[in-house]
């Protein structure tokens, strides 16, 4: 496709050319061009480094490869096809076109098969026309492994380069041939390779055709083997990247100014080795740091992974004959192609789960460490780069007057055929009304959840934003939403039972929602909720099949800790009052329920704290009497019934009881409470 452009650009530099025949001349021309472009000079330098790397990796030197100039092109095929002297016209199966194709090529002057495409290039894929096949790595691998795979790798290289050629017609980077190796021009007459090049010229050969790559090859290449030599030359290859990487990035998308920075982060010449992202460079076990070169992990995640690695993973992967089919660069390039698609304009939203999860883990660990008097400094978090997406898609196109919708299916929303509209049917069935009401409540809660999420987000942002106006605006926003939530939750009535909040409290999702809302509410509002909970405790406890009430405990605990004495007394009175429809008190029922008991303990503990502290209290008349009565009542109840294990046993309970009760009762109480919890209730 783009090949047609090439002649114009390159025509002036390369005169004619029957391509295979004039391999010698090509190399000379290549050297001339070198002077034209400074970039090419860099490439030339890089070429030298690649040579060095090749030597190290493959144990070759120029001499040996130079000794092979007259490598018969037929050898390639001969070697490949099981040492049987098959004529070139019967090439091995993978898509290698037959001889007629080769006739096209000579007609194209200056056809440059292998522009320098650094990212796609393997160490074999050094450029310069004719240099590819000349490359000792290619020659050697073919010689060493007479299999289809080796031929494939050559083909892969070709197609890769021509792919980039298509994309990068204006970034024409040709590495001139510096070495004095005579090109094995005859190899170019090889049918197979010629055919593939032609194929890629005519149509787009995907850079990595799955046909070519061995499906059997395990993805963990034997990087281990390559470890030591690779490490040595890693630094040299490092700065190979920045210039090179630009080529794939440019055609592919929006400007990525972060890319060089990315490269720097990952492949800075002083980067430690093995770089945590650069997994293919080391033994796969070692390189667990990243699934790919651009996988950027939250520092917390990285730490977890590295801790995991410290476990003995001492198995060495043996030398894998197929591991050189793709070079590291090629692999990276492909992975980066994928990553480009994943770059989002709003990483916090698109990658919400991952970011939040590790942030929370970080916070938790930071808290723990803080308690342990150890502060860890986290390196700045790396996130997938932030790009602005130009296009937005409309998932559903609705044509007026039509039934249903024309769905534009994408990977995010495969197909939306109809709108599932919530129909309000009037049902006569009694059972259905209840069911319907429940569904209504559920849908209300679900809608309100979104508002709650917004509140939490705004709250988090408030902590980070510095501008005062912005902060105030956020706070107003938060307050408005919180009020909306409060009012809506209050009004949802289940069967017109008249009790506020009850309908949502009876549903687990509602309980969780309230638990998350409580921190945002004012003291009075939260007190109201607490009293509702206490009043309806029997109902809640009986209907709490999945123990969802316990999620309310932490938030309510916080509320209780802020209670004033008289408010506390009012709440406590509920506990000892007899229920209208049974002779039990809430107290007796609470003893059998984890949440109820924990709530009770929390209340008592708060009372004790208030009394024993020096803060001035303003008790109403009769408060102290009520308090003492309640304590007696509770103590008596607790010592008589078997208790369940509470969520938390406050430490000052026994102190409280000691003050009011005789020793024997206290002792009895202590035993009872301890037997439930399994650990000692220490009297502080």
């Amino acid at each position, binding site marked *: 496709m783009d090949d047609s452009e090439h002649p114009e650009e390159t025509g002036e530099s390369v005169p004619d050319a029957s391509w295979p025949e004039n391999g010698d001349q090509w190399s000379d021309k290549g050297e001339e061009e070198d002077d034209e472009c400074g970039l090419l000079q860099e490439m030339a330098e890089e070429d030298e480094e690649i040579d060095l790397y090749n030597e190290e990796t493959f144990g070759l030197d120029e001499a040996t490869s130079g000794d092979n100039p007259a490598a018969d092109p037929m050898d390639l095929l001969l070697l490949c096809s099981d040492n049987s002297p098959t004529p070139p016209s019967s090439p091995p199966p993978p898509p290698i076109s037959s001889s007629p194709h080769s006739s096209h090529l000579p007609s194209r002057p200056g056809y440059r098969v292998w522009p320098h495409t650094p990212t796609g290039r393997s160490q074999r894929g050094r450029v310069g026309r004719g240099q590819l096949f000349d490359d000792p790595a290619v020659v050697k691998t073919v010689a060493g492994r007479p299999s289809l795979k080796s031929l494939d790798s050559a083909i892969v290289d070709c197609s890769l380069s021509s792919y980039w050629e298509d994309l990068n017609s204006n970034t024409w980077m040709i590495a001139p041939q510096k070495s004095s190796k005579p090109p094995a021009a005859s190899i170019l007459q090889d049918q197979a390779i010629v055919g593939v090049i032609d194929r890629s010229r005519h149509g787009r050969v995907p850079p990595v055709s799955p046909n070519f790559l061995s499906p059997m090859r395990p993805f963990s290449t034997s990087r281990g083997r390559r470890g030591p030599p690779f490490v040595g030359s890693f630094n040299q290859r490092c700065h190979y990247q920045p210039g090179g990487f630009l080529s794939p990035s440019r055609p592919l998308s929006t400007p990525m100014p972060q890319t060089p920075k990315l490269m720097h982060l990952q492949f800075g010449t002083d980067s430690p080795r093995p770089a945590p992202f650069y997994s293919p460079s080391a033994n796969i076990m070692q390189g667990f740091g990243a699934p790919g070169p651009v996988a950027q992990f939250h520092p917390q*995640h990285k730490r977890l*992974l590295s801790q995991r690695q410290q476990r003995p993973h001492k198995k060495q992967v043996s030398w894998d004959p197929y591991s050189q089919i793709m070079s590291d660069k090629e692999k990276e390039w492909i992975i980066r192609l994928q990553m480009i698609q994943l770059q989002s304009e709003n990483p916090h939203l698109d990658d919400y789960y991952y970011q939040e999860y590790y942030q929370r883990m970080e916070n938790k660990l930071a808290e723990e460490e803080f308690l342990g008097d150890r502060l860890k400094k986290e390196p700045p978090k790396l996130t997938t780069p932030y790009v602005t997406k130009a296009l937005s898609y409309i998932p559903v196109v609705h044509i007026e007057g039509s039934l249903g919708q024309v769905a534009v299916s994408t990977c995010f929303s495969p197909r939306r055929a109809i709108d599932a509209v919530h129909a309000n049917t009037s049902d006569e069935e009694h059972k259905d009304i209840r069911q319907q009401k429940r569904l209504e409540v559920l849908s209300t809660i679900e809608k309100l*959840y979104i508002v709650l999420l917004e509140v939490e987000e705004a709250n988090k942002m408030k902590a980070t934003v510095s501008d005062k106006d912005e902060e105030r605006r956020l706070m107003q926003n938060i307050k408005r939403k919180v009020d909306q939530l409060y009012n809506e939750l209050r009004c949802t009535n289940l069967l017109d039972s008249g009790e506020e909040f009850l309908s949502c409290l009876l549903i687990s999702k509602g309980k969780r929602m309230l638990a998350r809302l409580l921190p945002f509410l004012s003291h009075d509002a939260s007190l109201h909720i607490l009293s509702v909970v206490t009043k309806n405790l029997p109902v809640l406890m009986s209907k709490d099949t999945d123990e969802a009430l316990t999620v309310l405990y932490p938030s309510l605990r916080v509320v209780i800790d802020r209670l004033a004495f008289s408010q506390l007394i009012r709440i406590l009175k509920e506990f000892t009052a007899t229920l209208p429809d049974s002779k039990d008190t809430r107290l007796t029922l609470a003893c059998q329920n984890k949440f109820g008991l924990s709530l009770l303990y929390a209340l008592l503990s708060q009372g004790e704290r208030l009394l024993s502290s020096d803060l001035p209290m303003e008790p109403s008349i009769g408060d102290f009497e009520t308090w003492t009565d309640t304590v007696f009542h509770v103590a008596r109840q607790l010592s008589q019934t078997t208790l369940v294990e509470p969520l938390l046993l406050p430490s000052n309970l026994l102190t409280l009881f000691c003050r009011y009760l005789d020793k024997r009762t206290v002792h009895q109480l202590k035993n009872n409470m301890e037997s439930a919890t399994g650990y000692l209730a220490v009297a502080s």
Partner: protein
Amino acid sequence: MLFYSFFKSLVGKDVVVELKNDLSICGTLHSVDQYLNIKMTDISVTDPEKYPHMLSVKNCFIRGSVVRYVQLPADEVDTQLLQDAARKEAMQQKQ
């Protein structure tokens, strides 16, 4: 992107992947991509007698479309967070 994000947080953890051909593979999740293709290291087949050809395989790449289930460690998953993420995703879709 929700499940990609979710699985990213599980990289490095041990999972069991059950495929649509009933093969169950246990191993460490090495990486995941946007198609939910899974790479696993250190794998073992949960039922080795039935699949002797897997004895020597240590690492594998599984195409996302052939996965039936992925069994996860429960304590590595925050279900509330997952619910929130799903709600956000749904919200985003609507916009």
